């Protein structure tokens, strides 16, 4: 559906305005910082993915034969730490959020451009610390750092890994802070709260979690370091501490962190589905409020990670009940996305295929969450592959699918080039098939009792593990493809029109790629969000005249 005329001569934009390393490393342009993040997290994604492939290869056979047990333990630890803290948490917010939020609300930049750059530098410092930690021996505590193993028994670089994550947390806090202030203070005239794209609402909810939750994990990791280095008795019973205190503190952040990963992805999908259905999103207010509800309730469910950890029966009951309260707004979103398709005019471009994939995988991830929140079942399947499969359906099936969908949807705006549509549809299909082949067998493995973090396993679990490993290789191809054709398109892709999808939203009213200060003049918003009826009836948005 790409249409509209493309200018022959390349206009000045944020990419070609200045050249040279300095113009990138000292930039305060949110769009350039977004690209810096894109490069950094892509690097970490492939590091984490490499670890994942080694894990899957080791598990091809029941015996431990590819690597040593200690190496395996480091692999799954660092896979988790890299993917969670250095890819998933920054992914959509720091790349797409950074790029799009000022454009979507009609601002020149984020509220604090220099702090935005600072947050990238903090991320890079944390990344270098993490890489140094991994290259000089790594860490084997599991990404969860459970005490007293991490503070008194592990012989690996726990302190270094903890400090790396501590620093990366500040990067996350600053990004969240910047978004909240921008969304409150920098909206263009006429851009009321009820006219904000759901993408912005989702990031608002995400930012709240980043600001309120991240300090808790930071403090927790400092306490781990203090106990390990200074032998202060906090978590280790031998020193008078309480190991469950650690788990409470850890999950107080790390459960809401799941929503840092999934909420932005929901935001992306809520932009894509209306565009390719040519319709306003069904139940705008409910979808927006569901994001906020998820962020708030998300803080009240952490101990559902601890039903067999030794908490009291009554604590377990309360946390099980509250866990179901998060499921309601999640269900509301799925129903509204589906309803948006009703009586639409549906196109099947690659971003839409990713969005379909997201809804499917998120639904399955969410439904298996109902199993885990049920106390009697959790006792059996917690700490097994059932849990591994469940959270990968949410965090990889959901979050990464949304991330890729968003990258395809806004790639013309970001790069000024069109990606090859045929390849992109193929990649979406490969990712979907590869993902299910990798992770569906793990639900069965978990119910049959295979514990997670096992380097070797009884032979009866082999068939399902082989299926899973086969799926992982397919999935790897699916993830490599977009990287290849995105890079290819930067050089060889067709120039993108300003609004290739005829999409609603201020970001599509400016040129592709945008100029450094986004809008030639202050935009004034006089239309509602997702005004696809007006667009398709040929009513041009006022701001389009400018572009």
């Amino acid at each position, binding site marked *: 559906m790409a249409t509209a005329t493309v200018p022959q001569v390349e206009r000045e934009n944020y990419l070609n305005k200045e050249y040279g390393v300095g113009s990138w490393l000292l930039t305060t342009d949110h769009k350039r910082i977004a690209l810096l993040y894109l490069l950094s997290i892509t690097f970490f994604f492939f590091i984490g993915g490499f670890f994942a492939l080694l894990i899957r290869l080791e598990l091809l056979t029941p015996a*431990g034969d590819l690597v040593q*047990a200690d190496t395996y*333990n480091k692999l799954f630890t660092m896979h988790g730490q890299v993917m969670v803290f250095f890819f998933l948490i920054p992914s959509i917010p720091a790349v797409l959020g950074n790029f799009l939020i000022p454009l979507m609300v009609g601002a020149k930049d984020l509220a604090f451009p220099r702090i935005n750059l600072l947050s990238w530098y903090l991320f890079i410092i944390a990344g270098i610390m993490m890489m140094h930690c991994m290259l000089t021996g790594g860490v*084997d505590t599991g990404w969860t750092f*459970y005490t*007293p*193993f991490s503070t008194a*028994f592990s012989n690996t670089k726990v302190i270094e890994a903890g400090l790396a994550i501590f620093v990366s947390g500040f990067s996350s806090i600053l990004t969240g802070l910047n978004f909240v202030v921008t969304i409150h203070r920098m909206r263009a005239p006429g851009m009321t709260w009820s006219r904000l794209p759901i993408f912005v609402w989702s990031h608002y909810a995400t930012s709240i979690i980043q600001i309120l939750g991240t300090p808790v994990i930071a403090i927790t990791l400092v306490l781990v370091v203090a106990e390990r280095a200074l032998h202060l008795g906090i978590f280790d*019973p031998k020193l008078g501490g*309480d*190991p469950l205190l650690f788990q409470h503190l850890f999950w107080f952040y790390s459960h809401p962190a799941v929503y840092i990963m999934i909420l932005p992805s929901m935001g992306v999908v809520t932009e894509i589905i209306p565009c390719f*259905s040519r*319709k*306003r999103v069904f*139940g*705008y207010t409910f979808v927006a409020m569901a994001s906020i509800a998820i962020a708030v309730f998300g803080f009240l469910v952490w101990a559902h990670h601890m039903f067999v950890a*030794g*908490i*009291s*029966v009554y*604590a377990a*009951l309360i946390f*099980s009940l509250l866990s*179901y309260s998060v499921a*309601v707004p999640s*269900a509301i979103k*799925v*129903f*509204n996305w*589906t*309803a948006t*398709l009703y*009586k639409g*005019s*549906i196109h099947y471009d690659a971003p839409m295929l990713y969005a*379909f994939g997201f*809804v*499917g995988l998120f*639904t*399955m991830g969410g439904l298996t969450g*109902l*199993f885990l*929140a*049920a*106390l*009697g*079942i959790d*006792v*059996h399947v917690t*700490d*097994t592959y059932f849990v591994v499969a469940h959270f990968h359906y949410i965090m990889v099936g959901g979050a990464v699918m949304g991330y890729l969908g968003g990258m395809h949807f806004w790639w013309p705006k970001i790069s000024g080039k069109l990606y090859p549509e045929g390849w992109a549809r193929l990649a979406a299909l490969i990712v979907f098939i590869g993902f299910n082949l990798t992770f569906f067998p793990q639900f069965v493995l978990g119910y049959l*009792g295979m*514990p*997670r973090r*096992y380097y*070797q*396993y009884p032979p009866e679990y082999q068939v399902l593990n082989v299926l899973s490993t086969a799926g992982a290789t397919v999935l790897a191809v699916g993830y490599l493809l977009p990287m290849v054709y995105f890079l290819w398109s930067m050089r060889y892709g067709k120039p993108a029109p300003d609004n290739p999808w005829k999409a609603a939203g201020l970001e599509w009213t400016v040129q592709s790629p945008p100029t450094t200060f986004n809008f030639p003049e202050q935009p004034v918003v006089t239309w509602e969000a997702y005004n*696809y009826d007006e667009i*398709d*009836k040929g009513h041009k948005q006022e701001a389009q005249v400018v572009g």
Partner: protein
Amino acid sequence: MAGNVDALFIFLVILSGLMTLLIFSALVYFAARYRHRKGVLAEQIEGSTPLELTWSIIPLGVFMVIFVWGALVYFQQRTPARDATEVYVVAKQWMWKLEHAEGQREINSLHVPVGRNVKLIMTSQDVIHSFFVPEFRIKQDVLPGRYTVAWFQATKPGTYHLFCAEYCGTQHSGMIGSIVVMEPAQYEAWMSGGSNGPLSATGEKIFAELGCVTCHRSDSQGRGPNLQGVFGKPVQLEDGRMITADENYVRESILDPGAKMVKGFKPVMPTFQGLVSEEQLNSLVAYVKSLSDSVGARPRSASISAPNSAPDQAQPQGSKVQ
């Protein structure tokens, strides 16, 4: 009990299967039915509050059914039967040490008879482990510094996996063993093999060797409380609180005597932290328990108290196999 877990699981599989089918067929149907056609515009729909309420309230109702059902199963899992045989479990990197109340010791295997309730009283010497028997649908983390409890009843003879389910270091996946379920007759034969005598008798010996007996006299004239009949009963503390003397209380009172002083006594008892091994501690607990047992020979505890003043202290948990 495994049957109860499975029944709920199957219910959820059917329920989520139906939900997935509903969502997927709606997606596919809409995607095909409303495929873009030239000249046909989408019909704009704002939304529908009645619909939103419907698909909020109905799921909420279904969720509450799942919650209650799951909670009922969980209550069963965490309430050990009163008549259960007790086995003390000490976990360490990377093995399971098990000791029957009758005195038999095992490593990485546990022999139990069919049809008897078995209660596991567990602690760890080092990091957190987790006692997981998939076949019995039980799992309970085993923590250093306190007891946690699980229980089961095996119904079919056979050998079943015992896994450590909480990551505990290098040989985590090697910290496995087996539960050997035997016919009662075979089990009696197995039990008549070597034993050091009942755990409570070992405990009594240690109680004398460590000199506990000089203060904890059975005539209530000692400087410490008389321990006859104390286990499983409420105890009034110096600060006025009432707590139940369960395994964790006895354990704490040996290792940290000042933590919960019994009303009317002075904090004169020294700590035995570092002086007794986990196994000796288990024997002492078994001995104190046997003092509340009129039958004497095989100590059987009253059910452990309901969750009390310290909500995050280990609480009993367990399950039994159908």
